[in-house]
């Protein structure tokens, strides 16, 4: 900084704004950065905005400090890394292929980017009957997707517009499958090793969202997309919203989460809830992967409550101290106490103790005691045999969304196939 006055030229000041300009200036000032470029080729682009003179030209006293110390903290990245203001592109940048699905929120199309040829999913937002301008739910969804970029969250590419102001499309990566369809169509449930991989991916995505102050509020297998490379992506942030600390000061709605995956505190009318509700849903998804069918297939909220009580036993003052303070708790008569935890063990008789422990920690009544996504990822279940399978080793399936068909229904019994597979592997292993 000491020599900044002499070395600060107008072109240097500009170089902080724009990469292209930066490159051009370098050619005008060839002596300035040559040695630095050679020594640190990877970081040279980022380091040039700094007014610290390069060690070769000035101040031989402290060259090493300037070279070693990173110029920017990760919390204050250099100016050039910030994106510029970009107006929305037109939907005509894409070529429509086929319709994937139609939900209450809008229609989803498969489309091709005319420039790059990439296949994408175009979600058209329904804006025709809006009385309150641009729907807040769509805003939350777009913001949540933009704020939560992650390997296991569906990637939002951009938002494009049509000819009129009522045509808005969210452009996302196209992912071949959703986990719900996959589970119902596949002949045998996922292997333990596969379930561990899927759960780790899901937990990593959920923990990432929570870290960025986003609640998903609608985790379920049909909102988990899966590609042919064994990677799942959390999708549909239509109910997602930011939460704060303290939680729920602005009042949260109870009309969230698809019934089967809804946490007991929401069922009982809590207006302040937090990240724990997503974990309950993750627990239900975990169970669904194991069972190959949804855990609580209830038709009404009351039926769901009684199914939960039946499986986990009624809540007690130790398992859920705040239970009695919940608005709807008084209107419910608790069933008699059973022997503790037996319900889960009976339902998941083949699950290891570690697996059962993780499941029960996710399906814990008291939101305060329920495991967090971060903690769950460290659970011993993921470290015991069989270890999580590498995503590349997952099989691929025909994609219903891309209009592909299954070649032949699987109707033969599976045991002989397994046996054959087993022989094959042992044969292969022989010297």
């Amino acid at each position: 900084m000491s020599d900044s006055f002499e070395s600060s030229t107008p072109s240097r000041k500009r170089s902080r704004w724009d990469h292209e300009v930066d490159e051009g200036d370098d050619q005008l000032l060839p002596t300035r950065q040559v040695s630095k470029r050679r020594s640190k080729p990877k970081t040279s682009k980022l380091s040039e905005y700094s007014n610290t003179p390069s060690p070769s030209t000035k101040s031989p006293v402290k060259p090493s400090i300037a070279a070693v110390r990173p110029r920017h903290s990760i919390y204050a990245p250099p100016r050039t890394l910030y994106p510029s203001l970009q107006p929305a592109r037109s939907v005509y940048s894409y070529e429509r292929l086929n319709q994937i699905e139609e939900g209450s929120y809008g229609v989803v199309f498969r489309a091709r980017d005319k420039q790059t040829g990439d296949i994408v999913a175009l979600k058209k937002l329904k804006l025709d009957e809006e009385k309150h301008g641009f729907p807040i739910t769509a805003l939350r969804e777009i913001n949540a997707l933009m704020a939560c970029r992650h390997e296991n969250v569906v990637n939002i590419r951009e938002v494009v517009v049509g000819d009129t102001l009522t045509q808005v499309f969210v452009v996302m990566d196209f992912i071949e499958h959703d986990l719900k369809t996959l589970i119902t169509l596949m002949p045998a449930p996922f292997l333990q090793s596969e379930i561990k991989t899927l759960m780790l991916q899901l937990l990593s995505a959920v923990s990432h969202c929570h870290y960025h102050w986003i609640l998903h509020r609608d985790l379920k297998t049909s909102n988990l997309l899966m590609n042919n490379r064994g990677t799942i992506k959390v999708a549909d942030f239509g109910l997602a919203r930011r939460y704060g600390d303290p939680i729920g000061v602005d009042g949260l709605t109870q009309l969230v989460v698809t019934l089967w995956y809804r946490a007991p505190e929401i069922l009982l009318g809590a207006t302040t809830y937090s990240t724990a509700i997503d974990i309950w849903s993750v627990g239900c998804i975990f169970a669904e992967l194991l069972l190959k069918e949804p855990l609580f297939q209830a038709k009404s909220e009351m039926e769901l409550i009684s199914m939960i009580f039946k499986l986990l036993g009624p809540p007690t003052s130790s398992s859920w101290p705040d239970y009695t303070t919940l608005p709807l708790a008084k209107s419910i008569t608790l069933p008699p106490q059973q022997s503790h935890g037996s319900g889960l063990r009976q339902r998941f008789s083949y699950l290891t103790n570690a697996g059962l422990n993780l499941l029960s920690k996710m399906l814990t009544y008291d939101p305060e005691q329920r495991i967090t996504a971060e903690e769950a990822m460290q659970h011993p279940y993921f470290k015991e045999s069989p270890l999580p399978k590498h995503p590349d080793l997952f099989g691929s399936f025909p994609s219903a969304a891309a209009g592909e068909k299954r070649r032949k229904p699987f109707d033969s019994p599976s045991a002989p196939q397994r046996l054959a597979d087993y022989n094959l592997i042992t044969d292969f292993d022989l010297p």
Partner: protein
Amino acid sequence: MSRALYPLASLEQVEKSPSREDGLPPDLEEDLRAYGCKLIHHAGILLKQKQVAVATAQILFHRFWFVTSLKQFGIGDIGMGALYLASKLEECPLRMRDLINVYDLLLRRASHSNSTGDFKYTPMSYFGNTFYDLKDALVVAEMQILKRLGFDVHVVLPYGTLINYMRLLDLTGREDAVSRAWGYLNDALQTPVYVLYPVPTIVSAAILLATRHLQIPLPSTPPNCWWELFDAEWEDVWAVCGYIMRLYRERSKEDQARVAGMLTKKDVRRWLEEHGHKEGKH
């Protein structure tokens, strides 16, 4: 770090503001944008809206004018749209009718300021055309902001950063310094700095102004400069200080009247027609 960065204006966007391309002089654009932000601020107070929503609205408002000319949209409409949108983003949505009533009052009071006599406000009729016209303008403004900003409405406010920096500089005991710096951050919302510089630079500028004003010494001689802790460049910090201090300069009656008469795109267009050939000479 995977957290998405908030957008800032590119060099080209800074050098060629769309309004300037349309022939509007830079100082007039600056005044109009500042006035639009004051309207948002007034509306926020009258609506008892949270400051986070007001500040977000002001930043979105400034971003908008880096991609759109004042000839195409008025500062009244876009300010209203920005406040409506920001209130949704900050999870404290406003009722359309409340916002429209408040803006109607503010706009009429502003245009009255150029004439003599006491200002009397007569509320609009419940189903009158005034309401529906303003409502259409509001919906269009909100959508245009979203569209022209590419739906990237991620805003980072400076307040948390200020608290951290003040702690780091051991200044939290100086309440006068803290509240003065806080005030500079709020006033800076009337300038485009939040679209020009990253938050650490702006916060450093607010601290610099506050500490210099109160004559609180901080290490400022090379190689020990406190703003370097926060990755801010001296030239940038100084430039932000310049933007903020310009807000406080004395303004002539004519300058004030000129701005109050240009709240809609029609007014701006009329002004451009009247002054067009004069500006063209430059």
